[in-house]
């Protein structure tokens, strides 16, 4: 529109709209002039009160095919297994976190699970404000002496998971070039990447390792499959024949691109992506570097059900099956015994501490 029109439309029309808008707002107000019944339907008084679990996502949604989804899946498994009641609220803005937590607190939920390191501060604030409320938070631990006692920090050794994936990649590559497509450089992603690269080097010291993080201005974070696909292609052009995709749907775009090319294999992340990604990807999905967020939330709920909930950090790593490699599924036949043996060896080594990923105790995995 020409600038004149823009201005004119503004100049001429305004007074009419104010009553109109005012009514719109008023209607919303009036809509509940009907008796605002206390929301009982959420907690029908049954014979014995059910245990209620609330989950608050970070700004990613429940269907991010990543840790929010995974966390929710664990909770739902607990619903099936223990008959607890569960609800989720997705956060639209980071400023919503505390509000959404508050909603569950007000409704008397037994356990509130928050997801993601972005929620670390707000979860802590809420925990300090409501010391009798049980919390669990995925991907965050509190290490200082004042750490709240009512929060279970669910931490993961993503580096170990990545390391195992790196071992497989390092051994399976024929071109001696391996790649990686990663989401934004946030701590869990960085730990995956660095563990993976350490794993490759552990078995194949002269392999070339490629990798790219999605930049903050490369479209929507963790949700630009087209960008991920383009980067996977870059790497295949450089000769990579195994590519690790760790970055929500950005990474999934990478896997989809790999599936279009002969002879290149992909490695998924977080869940066993064989079950979450499209059929196209199944035939090239070598394995997934799993981070059992679902297991951790399941266990957190279980601890509440069984009455042995304890605050403090709980690390999910190779020793408690909190992380691990997914099965090879369709590609099982292509994986030699050498590889399997090596993976087994590394698992043992990681368990007994004889093999290190190099990220043990590193506070900021994203720092160089």
């Amino acid at each position, binding site marked *: 529109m020409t600038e004149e029109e823009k201005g*004119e439309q503004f100049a*001429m029309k305004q007074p009419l709209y104010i009553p109109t808008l005012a009514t719109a707002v008023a209607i919303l107000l009036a809509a509940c002039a009907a008796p605002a019944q206390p929301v009982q339907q959420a907690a029908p008084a049954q014979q014995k009160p059910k245990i209620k679990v609330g989950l608050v996502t970070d700004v990613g949604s429940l269907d991010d095919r990543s840790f929010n989804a995974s966390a929710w899946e664990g909770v739902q498994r607990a619903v099936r297994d223990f008959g607890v009641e569960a609800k989720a609220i997705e956060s639209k803005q980071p400023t919503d976190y505390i509000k959404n937590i508050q909603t569950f607190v007000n409704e008397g939920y037994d356990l509130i699970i928050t997801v993601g390191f972005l929620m670390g501060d707000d979860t802590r604030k809420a925990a300090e404000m409501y010391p009798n409320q049980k919390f669990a938070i995925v991907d965050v631990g509190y290490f200082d002496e004042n750490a709240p006692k009512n929060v279970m920090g669910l931490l993961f050794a993503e580096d170990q998971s990545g390391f195992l994936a790196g071992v497989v990649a390092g051994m399976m590559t024929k071109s001696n070039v391996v790649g990686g497509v990663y989401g934004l450089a946030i701590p869990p992603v960085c730990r995956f990447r660095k563990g993976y690269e350490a794993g490759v080097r552990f078995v194949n010291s002269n392999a070339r390792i490629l990798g790219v993080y999605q930049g903050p201005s490369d479209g929507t974070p963790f949700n630009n499959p087209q960008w991920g696909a383009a980067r996977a292609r870059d790497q295949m052009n450089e000769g990579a024949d195994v590519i690790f995709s760790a970055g929500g749907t950005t990474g999934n775009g990478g896997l989809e691109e790999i599936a279009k090319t002969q002879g290149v294999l992909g490695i998924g992340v977080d869940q066993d992506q064989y079950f979450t990604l499209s059929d196209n990807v199944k035939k090239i999905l070598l394995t997934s570097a799993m981070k059992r967020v679902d297991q951790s939330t399941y266990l957190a709920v279980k601890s509440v059900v069984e009455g042995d909930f304890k605050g403090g950090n709980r690390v999910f790593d190779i020793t408690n099956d909190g992380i691990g490699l997914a099965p090879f599924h369709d590609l099982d036949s292509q994986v030699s015994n050498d590889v399997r043996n090596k993976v087994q060896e590394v698992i043992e080594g990681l368990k007994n501490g004889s093999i290190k990923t190099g990220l043990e105790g590193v506070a900021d995995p994203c720092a160089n």
Partner: protein
Amino acid sequence: MTRPDVVLEMRGITKRFPGVLANDHINLDLRKGEVHALLGENGAGKSTLMNILYGLYQPDAGEIWLDGRRVTIHSPRDAIALGIGMVHQHFMLVPTLTVTENIILGLETRRGLLLDEATPQQRIRQISRDFGLEIDPEAYVKDLPVGVQQRVEIVKALYRNARVLVLDEPTAVLTPLEVESLFSTLRALVKRGVSVIFISHKLKEVKAIADRITVLRQGRVVGSTTPAEAGEAQLASMMVGRPVILKVDKSPAQPGPVVLSVRDVKAMSDRRAMALQGVSFDVRAGEIVGIAGVEGNGQTELVEVITGLRQPLAGQVLLCGQPLPAWSPRAAIDRGMSHIPEDRYKYGIVAAYSLAINLVLSVFHRPPFSRNGLLQRRAILSNAERLVEEFDIRAPHAEVPIGKLSGGNQQKAVVAREFSRPMKLLVAAQPTRGVDVGSIEFIHKRIVQARDAGAAVLLVSAELDEIMALSDRILVMFGGRIVGERDGRTARREDIGLLMMGKV
């Protein structure tokens, strides 16, 4: 019932717009091969009537008969199909398209799926030759002078096989010579059986070309006559409803010191062509200097340079001996320049805003209209009330959006605004364009008053009559240069007309 030689008959046409009865039971008939003039002031309902004929508006009542058949015209498409062509006052040409493209628009010939421009171009050339309408089919319309654009419009109508051709104020933008050539074109058309409706408010021209004249006033037919029967004065009083003084009353000029001095100014046009090739002249206090010339010969750019709206490439503009900082309209205003811009709607007013605001458009940031950065509503309104009174602006109230006023009242508001500042120099570009006779008289009177009060006045107008009536000195512009100067009292139309064509 219809006489055989009547091509077109409009009966009882009535059209009402919110608040206005634009056409009130108008009857009009057009005979084959005649030029029928429709005479009336701005706002008399001429254009509405013709827009109804052309299908742009639907009448509230009334009938249109063509060749003895009753027709309904829903859209221009229908009108074109019936052989009605129209040359609008504001040309309906798309500036970014070529002449050919404009002419064939809506009636394209194809070669396969693609546009065929070769065939129509041949026909366009043919029509040009037949009627002496010289045009270049491949030129872009935006590069053409208005006179040529008008020819394009006529060719466009002929290309569509128009048997009835309506020309809405066709001479407004033409030089006397161009008017002559238009008239000879019209005579040629008439000879070939085309019937012409010629809309105008200029008595001389109507008398010169029309076979019959119908006069409209305030939406009604006042009467029909022929040039032979009615004199100019009689037509004028039919048109305005009262006797009209056709001469501007003014005493001889008493020039004072030089106020505006333009020294060898060169400037480019928006289209990056050299529009001013070195223009120099002075305007003294107490005189009106008129710039005559066909539009597009640099007058627009000259006015823009003087008023600080355009950066000159070279040269200087001095106001009372002091050079004006280039490209600062505000500086010019602050130093006593007033400017009536050529296109009122585009440059002169902000249509959506109130009359009161439009009356302080260039001074609202100063006391008393604004103090400490805050607008003083009361001062703005009382200023408006004063000017409304003084300049006889007809408006329901001061906060009416100025776009809702008639053209004449809008222009009076512009004049009022510009005259309300202390004025050393008045630059008036087309000050009476699209304005009714009453307003024209009023504005002319105010300009002369300003001169008599000691202001220097630079008048730029495409209306030669206006230049002749008002100017103490006349400069003629052609091709970006001043090509001649004449004394206002002794200048002759024909002489100036030749200068305007560049024939020195």
